C-alpha cells in the first residue's frame, strides 16, 4: 500500500484486508510507541554483542565500525541495558 495508513479510504482497502505485497512488517516502524530507548557509551563498549544477542525484537543493529545502535523496531524494553557486560547502555526517556 503506497498511501499512508491514515489516508486510506474504506473503498481503497483490498477485500478482506488481504495484503498482496510482501514487506508490510518492514513498512511498519513498531518502535514508534516506545517510551524509553537505549544509548550506548562507546568509551566503555567492548563490541561483545551481548545486547544484540539478548534483544527479543531484533531492535539492535551492528554498525560498520562494530558498535551497536538501536533501529526502528526497538520497543525500549531495557533488556540490553540490564544484560550489558560493561554497563555501557543507559535507558533514556523518549522526547516529544
Amino acid at each position, binding site marked *: 500500500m503506497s498511501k499512508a495508513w491514515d489516508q486510506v479510504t474504506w473503498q481503497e*482497502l*483490498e*477485500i*478482506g*484486508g488481504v*495484503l498482496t505485497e510482501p514487506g508490510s512488517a518492514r513498512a511498519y516502524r513498531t518502535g514508534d510507541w516506545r517510551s524509553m530507548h537505549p544509548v550506548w557509551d562507546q568509551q566503555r563498549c567492548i563490541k561483545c554483542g551481548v545486547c544484540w544477542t539478548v534483544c527479543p525484537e531484533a531492535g539492535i543493529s551492528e554498525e560498520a565500525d562494530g558498535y551497536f545502535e538501536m533501529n526502528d523496531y526497538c520497543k525500549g524494553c531495557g533488556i540490553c541495558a540490564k544484560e550489558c557486560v560493561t554497563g555501557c547502555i543507559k535507558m533514556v526517556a523518549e522526547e516529544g
Partner: protein
Amino acid sequence: MAHRVGMEVSIAVSHAVQLARAEAIAAYPITPQTHIVEHLSSLVANGELEAEFVTVESEHSAMSASIGSAATGVRTYTATSSQGLALMHEILFIASGMRLPIVMTVANRALSAPWNDHGDIMAEKDIGWIQIFVENGQESFDHSVMAFKIAEHHKVLLPTIINLDGFILTHVVEPLEMVDQETIDRFLPSIVPYHQLNPQKPVTMGAFAMPELFTEFKMAHQMALANSYDHILEVWREWGELTGRHYQPVERYRTEGAKIRLLIMGSLGEVAGVAVDEMRDEGLSVGLIKPRLWRPFPFKDLREAVAGADLLIVCDRAQSLGGAAHPVMAEVRSALYPLANRPQVLGYAVGLGGRDVQPQAFKDMVAHALNEIKQGPTEEFYLVGVRG
C-alpha cells in the same frame, strides 16, 4: 428436471451440499445437526462426493479448518448447532472479516437444552455473515445450494448461514423436489477464488489492523453486507426461473388490507399461516410476515410488508435477557421507528426450548395483543404460555 421424493430434511441438505460439489467439509457432530454431517461423511467415504472431510475435535476447530480451506480457494461447507455455534463464536468474526465464502447450516437449537428455538443464532447476529432462515424441507434444500452461489459471488464474498429449525425440520421427512446434477452444475459452476493462498503468488491474509485502518475495514465489511442484497436477490431470481420456486427477502401471506400482522421467522411460519387462515375465516383482519433474509437486514421489504397495518405482533424464538426487547422485535421495531406511519409493535417469545406451538397459540397472541392495546401494553414484551 425435477423429481419428487420423500426425504428427511437433514439428508436433503447433505444431498444439496453433494450436488453443489463441496470440496472441503470440516464438521463436528452435534444434535440436531448430526444427520447432515453423518450423511455427508458417508457420501465422502463411499466415493459419492469427492471432498476432503476433516473430522475435527471441536467446533472451534471446525470453523478454523473451514477458514483455512476456504482461504486456499476450495468450496467449503460446515454445519453446527447451539453449543457448537457458541464454541465457534470468536472464529466466526474472522471468517467474515477475511471475506471467505464458507457456507454453514445452523440447525437452530436452544443453548443448554437440546431442543429447538433460535437462542443460538440470535447470540450470533453481529458476526458479519449473510444469514437466511428457511421454513420447510424444500427451502432447506434450495437455499443450501443457492448459498454457495451467493457467498462465492465476487461482488459478495461473505460467509453465509442457512438457519433451519432443529428437529422440527432436521428430523422430519418431507416431500421434496430434488434438482438434478446437470442443472445444478449449470447454475453453480466451480468456485473461482478471489484471493487465494498460493505459494506461487504469496499474500498475507488475516493481518491485524491498527486504529488508523480498523474503522475503514469495518465500513468496508458493513458495505459488503449491504451491497450483497442485490446479488442475493439476483441468485434467488435465477433459481426461481430454473425451478419455479421464487423467494423474497420478506415473505408475505394474506397481508393485503390486514390491520393486524403477525411476524415470525423459521418453520413456525407454516403454523402461523394456518392460524391466519382460521382467523380470516372468523372475520379477523390478520396477515403474516415472514422475514427470510436476516442479514443484511431487509429494511425496504420489511417497511413495505407492514404498510397499512395498525398492529404488528412480532413472534420471537429467543430472548434477550435483561434487554430492551426480544431480539427480532428489537430490530423490527427499530427499523420501523423512523416511519411517520407505523404500526404499534408488541413482542412475544414463543416455543422456547422446543415447547410445542399449535395454531391456537397465534390466535391467543392476537387476542391478547388486541386486549393489551386497549389500555396500553402492561409489559414491554411477553413470554407465551409461561406458568405462574
